[in-house]
């Protein structure tokens, strides 16, 4: 078992013929992910990766032809909202958006629309999903994690890899790793994923990786305290970030004096969560 993706995931890649799309599709295929189709408008009828994967003009046709049940997006930011609407409209229930730089007002409209349709979006500006040994959707390097019983959920990208890698070095594996992305408005937040891990039989413990900005970690703390039985270990990035300075992620802006690392750590500790001082300390807190 795992959450969101597994061996039965039939993946569509939107923007498959771009540089990033092609590179990461080859990585996903190499990992064993069942990539059934790609979409690039105007390139329908082509095949990529040495003729292994067909390319379609529209998601609708791709779904009819291949019964894809998840889609990952490597499309430029300005086309991303439309690509998400297209996937949703074609009936794809799980959309993973890797693209960064999507305007926040676009994302508010997208999220508002998807909520009406009951469609799960992960991202944007996220590294995607990895269920080690089964399926990799997105850009998390496959070789840094092994199958196991730890659920990992993170707002960050490369920081997540650090944690997976630190676990692997000690022989600890992950059930599923979910990168939810650091943008101010995104599709899936901590409590969505915590709830899935709580219900997943393969997951015994959860690692949560947060960062400064917003109140998602504070909400997660409340959820953990009231709704979770499985232990959660956390790390919060940005303890040395000067207040009010923008740190590259829109999500890393400290809003009106709240949302500091200290606030988040305090809330999590109050909920019984062990908080690591640095990522490589996480494995020791898991045992």
């Amino acid at each position, binding site marked *: 078992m795992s959450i969101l993706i597994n061996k039965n995931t039939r993946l569509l890649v939107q923007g498959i013929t771009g540089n*990033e799309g092609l590179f*990461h599709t080859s*990585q996903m295929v190499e990992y064993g992910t069942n990539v059934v189709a790609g979409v690039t408008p105007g390139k329908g009828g082509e095949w990529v990766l040495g003729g292994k994967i067909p390319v379609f003009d529209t998601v609708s046709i791709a779904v009819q032809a291949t019964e894809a049940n998840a889609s990952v997006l490597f499309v430029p*930011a*300005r086309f991303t909202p439309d690509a998400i609407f297209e996937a949703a409209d074609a009936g794809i229930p799980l959309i993973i958006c*890797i693209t*960064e*730089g999507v*305007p*926040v*007002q*676009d*994302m*508010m*409209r997208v*999220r*508002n*629309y998807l909520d009406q349709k009951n469609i799960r979006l992960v991202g944007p500006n996220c*590294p995607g999903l990895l269920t080690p040994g089964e399926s990799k959707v997105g850009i*998390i*390097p496959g070789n*840094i994690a092994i199958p196991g019983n730890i659920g990992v959920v*993170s707002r*960050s*990208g*490369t*920081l*997540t*890899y*650090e944690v997976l*890698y*630190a676990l692997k070095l000690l022989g600890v594996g992950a059930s599923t790793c979910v990168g939810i992305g*650091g943008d*101010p*408005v995104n599709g899936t937040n901590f409590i969505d994923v915590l709830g899935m891990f709580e219900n997943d039989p393969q997951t015994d413990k959860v690692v949560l990786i947060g*960062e*400064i900005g*917003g*109140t*998602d970690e504070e*909400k997660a703390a409340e959820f953990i305290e009231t709704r979770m039985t499985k232990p959660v270990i956390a*790390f919060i*990035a*940005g*303890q*040395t*970030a*000067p207040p009010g*300075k*923008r*740190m*590259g*992620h*829109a999500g*890393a802006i400290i809003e*009106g004096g709240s949302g500091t690392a200290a606030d988040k750590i305090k809330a999590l500790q109050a909920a019984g969560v062990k908080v690591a*001082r*640095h*990522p*490589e300390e996480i494995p020791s807190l898991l045992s």
Partner: protein
Amino acid sequence: MKLHEYQSKQIFAKYGIPIPKGRVAVTASEARQIAEELGGRVVVKSQVLVGGRGKAGGIQLANNPEHAEELATKILGMEIKGLPVRKVLVDEAANIDQEIYLGITTDRAARKPVMMASAAGGIEIEEVARQTPEKIIKVHIDPLLGLRDYQARNIACNIDLSRDYWRDFGKIANGLWNAYAATDATLAEINPLVTTKDKRLIALDGKMLVDDNAMFRHPDLTEMRDLDTETRAETDARKYGLSYIQLEGDIGCMVNGAGLAMTTMDIVKLFGGAPANFLDIGGGASAEKVAAALRIILSDPNVKAVLFNVFGGITRCDEVARGVLAALDEVRPEVPMVVRLVGTNAEEGRQLLADANMITAETLADAAQKAIAAAKGEAS
């Protein structure tokens, strides 16, 4: 991207929000001329992208054109929170009755825009928010429907605005929503929105933040960017799509990903060092981008060692390594470098750097400790 007060107010005016008559001056004599044109008392306001201008003496009332010139001379010579004042806005003075706060921003938790208003507007609004949050009215806006008339009415009602002003307030609230939506703003704020003795509503001060990610559809806003207020390093960083913020320490950090970059800073501090900067080279960094990043880091004279920490996902380690080599060729740095490459194509990347005489590390903790030691001049 932050807009100046005068830029924000020009946008407001475009969407039907009344603003005071006035213009921007870059010299004191221009300020005098504007004051002459306006007649009567004027306000001379420093245009710098930072809060607390009033308390710093950067906003002053002039009784006549001579006085305006005198004040402009003084204000144009000021620095406010480290930022030199290069422009002043000369506005006609208003006969203020009541000061209202009205703003729109993104409520991340609700995933919707939120309009906020308070009868207790003015410079102490953040204090009001902290001490008497019930005095701040919040109304969420459906991002697909936009602000509705009834919502503006609800706000007017709840801040106890006199009925005489409801119609104008509705137009202003609607104009502010349109300005926010049309410019992809993340903040659009009128503070204060004043009622005057002659029964008008005027946006006396304004502030807008616009979404850097949406600039592709706003060439007009891109032109508004005030390069004067950026350091050379910051301008360079933006040009190459890098996020760079200079800090006080001596260990230059170059990391891919904001979260990992913050973590790298955190761990440097945890082991007793001090980071010289935040620098995120972003995803898919090209050799050119990495070289630029290195130049920017080394342009800070405080830097005594550089810590490269790259975990390859979108960014492939061989690309990063090539960028580092290209930059080394060009910059020939004299400070020691600690490198940690993990992830996609890490081996190729390490091989490329193997001959370049760099300190390498396996773990993050190890890398941080080696960088601290290197900055102290200790051999590794």
